[in-house]
C-alpha cells in the first residue's frame, strides 16, 4: 500500500517535471510573437492581457480586492507641499473600478497604480508629483501589519507558555510547534555561522526569519487575508537587506575592516587592487539578499498566475484540466521555496554577521 502510494507519487513528479520541460520549450518558442499579439489585437478587441493581469496581481495596490466587485478601501496618506492629507482609497475609483480624480488639497488620480497630482488641464503635474510622498496603507502595508499582529500574538503566547509550563515540563501545543523552528534557527543557522557570540543576534535573526516566512506563506494564499505579494516586493526585501547591512557593519570588528581595506598577508599592490573589490562586496552582499528573495517569490507568483491565465488564453474550461494540477504542483513547490527563501535569507545574514565579527586567530598566533 505504502509502496504503491510512493510509486504513484514519484510517477506524478516525473510526469509533471517532464511536462514542465516540454512546456517551457514551447513557451520559449512562442514567446516572441505573443506580446505583439497581446499589445495589438488584445487592446483593440478588449481582449485578455496576460502581462497586465499578472503584473496587477503582483504589484501593490491602494485597495484590497476581495472578489467580484467587492474591494476593501484602504487609507491613503499623502504628504505634499500643501501638508499631510488622509482619505479613503474609495474616492480614487468609480463604481466600475476605473480611476477618477479626487480633489483634496490637490487633484489626485491613480495612474498605473500610483497616485499622481493632476494639473488643471487634466494632465499629470510631473513637478508636483515628484515631490509627493505617498505613505498610504496599501495592500502590502496592511498585510505587513497583519503579519506583525499575527507574529506578536503567536510568539507572545508562546513566551507565556514557557513561563507557565516552566523549564521542567515538555512544551505543549503551539509552543511545541514553534520550538523546533526556533531551535532550527538557533542550531542550524545562528550557531554554525556566527559562533559563540550568536546569542546577541538571535532576536534579529528570528524576527527576520519569521517575518519573511509568514509573508511568503500569506503570499501563497490566493484569497482575502493573503494574496498580497509582500515578500516579492522589492521595497520589503530592500528594507530587510538594509537592516542586515546596518547590523553587519555596526557589529564589524577591526579585523573585518582590515580585511576589506588592507588585506593582510598580501603584497601592497595586491592590497591596493583588492580594496575596491572588497568594498564593493560590502554592498553586493545585502543587494544579493534583496534580489534573491524578491526574484524567487515574484517568479513563483508569476508562474502560478501564468498557469491559471492559460485558461483565459485558451478561453476554454478544458484548459483548467492541465492548468490547475500544474498550478497545484507549482504551489507545492512554492511552499518549499517559501520556507527555503526565509531560511536562505536568515542563513546568509547570519553568515555575513559571522564574517564581520570573526576573530582571526591565525594572525594573532604569529605574534
Amino acid at each position, binding site marked *: 500500500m505504502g509502496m504503491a502510494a510512493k510509486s504513484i507519487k514519484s510517477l506524478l513528479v516525473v510526469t509533471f517535471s517532464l511536462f514542465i520541460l516540454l512546456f517551457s520549450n514551447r513557451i520559449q518558442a512562442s514567446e516572441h510573437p505573443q506580446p505583439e499579439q497581446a499589445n495589438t489585437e488584445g487592446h483593440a478587441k478588449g481582449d485578455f492581457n496576460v502581462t497586465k493581469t499578472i503584473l496587477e496581481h503582483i*504589484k*501593490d495596490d491602494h485597495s484590497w480586492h476581495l472578489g467580484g466587485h467587492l474591494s476593501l478601501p484602504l487609507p491613503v496618506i499623502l504628504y505634499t507641499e500643501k501638508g499631510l492629507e488622509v482619505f479613503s482609497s474609495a474616492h480614487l475609483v468609480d463604481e466600475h473600478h476605473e480611476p477618477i480624480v479626487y480633489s483634496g488639497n490637490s487633484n489626485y488620480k491613480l495612474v498605473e497604480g500610483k497616485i499622481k497630482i493632476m494639473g488643471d488641464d487634466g494632465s499629470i503635474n510631473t513637478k508636483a508629483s515628484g515631490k509627493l510622498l505617498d505613505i498610504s496603507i496599501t495592500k502590502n502595508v496592511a498585510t505587513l501589519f497583519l503579519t506583525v499582529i499575527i507574529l506578536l500574538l503567536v510568539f507572545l503566547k508562546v513566551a507565556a507558555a514557557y513561563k507557565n509550563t516552566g*523549564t521542567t515540563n515538555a512544551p505543549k501545543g503551539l509552543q511545541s510547534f514553534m520550538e523546533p523552528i526556533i531551535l532550527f534557527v538557533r542550531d542550524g543557522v545562528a550557531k554554525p555561522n556566527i559562533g559563540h557570540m550568536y546569542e546577541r543576534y538571535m*532576536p534579529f535573526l528570528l524576527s527576520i526569519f519569521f517575518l519573511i516566512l509568514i509573508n511568503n506563506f500569506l503570499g501563497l494564499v490566493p484569497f482575502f487575508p493573503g494574496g498580497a505579494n509582500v515578500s516579492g516586493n522589492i521595497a520589503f526585501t530592500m528594507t530587510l537587506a538594509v537592516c542586515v547591512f546596518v547590523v553587519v557593519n555596526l557589529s564589524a570588528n577591526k579585523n573585518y575592516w582590515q580585511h576589506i581595506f588592507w588585506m593582510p598577508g598580501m603584497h601592497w599592490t595586491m592590497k591596493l587592487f583588492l580594496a575596491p573589490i572588497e568594498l564593493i562586496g560590502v554592498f553586493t552582499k545585502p543587494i544579493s539578499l534583496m534580489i534573491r528573495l524578491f526574484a524567487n517569490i515574484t517568479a513563483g507568483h508569476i508562474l502560478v498566475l501564468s498557469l491559471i491565465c492559460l485558461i483565459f488564453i485558451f478561453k476554454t474550461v478544458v484548459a483548467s484540466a492541465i492548468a490547475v494540477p500544474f498550478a497545484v504542483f507549482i504551489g507545492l513547490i512554492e511552499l518549499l521555496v517559501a520556507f527555503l527563501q526565509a531560511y536562505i535569507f536568515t542563513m546568509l545574514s547570519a553568515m555575513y554577521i559571522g564574517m564581520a565579527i570573526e576573530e582571526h586567530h591565525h594572525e594573532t598566533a604569529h605574534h
Partner: protein
Amino acid sequence: MLLEINPLVLPDIGLVFWNTVAFLILLIVLGKFAWKPILKSIRERETGIADAIASAEKVKAEMAGLVNENEALMVKAREERALMIKEAKEASDKMIATAKDKAKSEYDRIVAEAQHAILQQKNAALTDVKNQVGSLVIEVATKVLGRELANKADQENYIQQLAEAVKLN
C-alpha cells in the same frame, strides 16, 4: 532614465517606511517579550536536562562503586571467616594437644608412681622374704646343728639343697 525602470523593481517609499516601522516594532517587542524569554527557557531546560543526565551518570557510577565495595566487603568477610575458622581449629587442636600431653604426663606419673609403689612393695616383700629367709636360715641352721653333723657328705648335700631352695626364692 530612472523613470523607465520597471515599477516591479522600483521600491515604494511608503512601503519602505511602513516596513521599517513594522520590523522595528517586531524586533523590539518580540526581542524583549518573546525571543529572550523563550531562548532563556529553552536554554534552562537544556542545561536542566544535561544536569539531570550528568547526575544520573554520577549516581550510576556511585552505584557501581557501591556494588564493588559490597563485593570487596564480602571478600573481606569471607577471608575473615576463613581466618576465624582456621584460628578456631588451631585453638582446638592446641587444646586437644595440651589435653593429650597432660593426660600422657598424668598417665606417666601414675605409671611411675605405680612402679614406684610396686618397687617399694617388692622391696618390702624382699626385705620380708630376706627376713623370713634369715629366720628360715636360722631355723634350718638350728635344725642342721640339731643333726650334729652326722654325715659330712649328707651335710654338704643338705646345705646344697638349702642353698638351692634359697636361690629359688
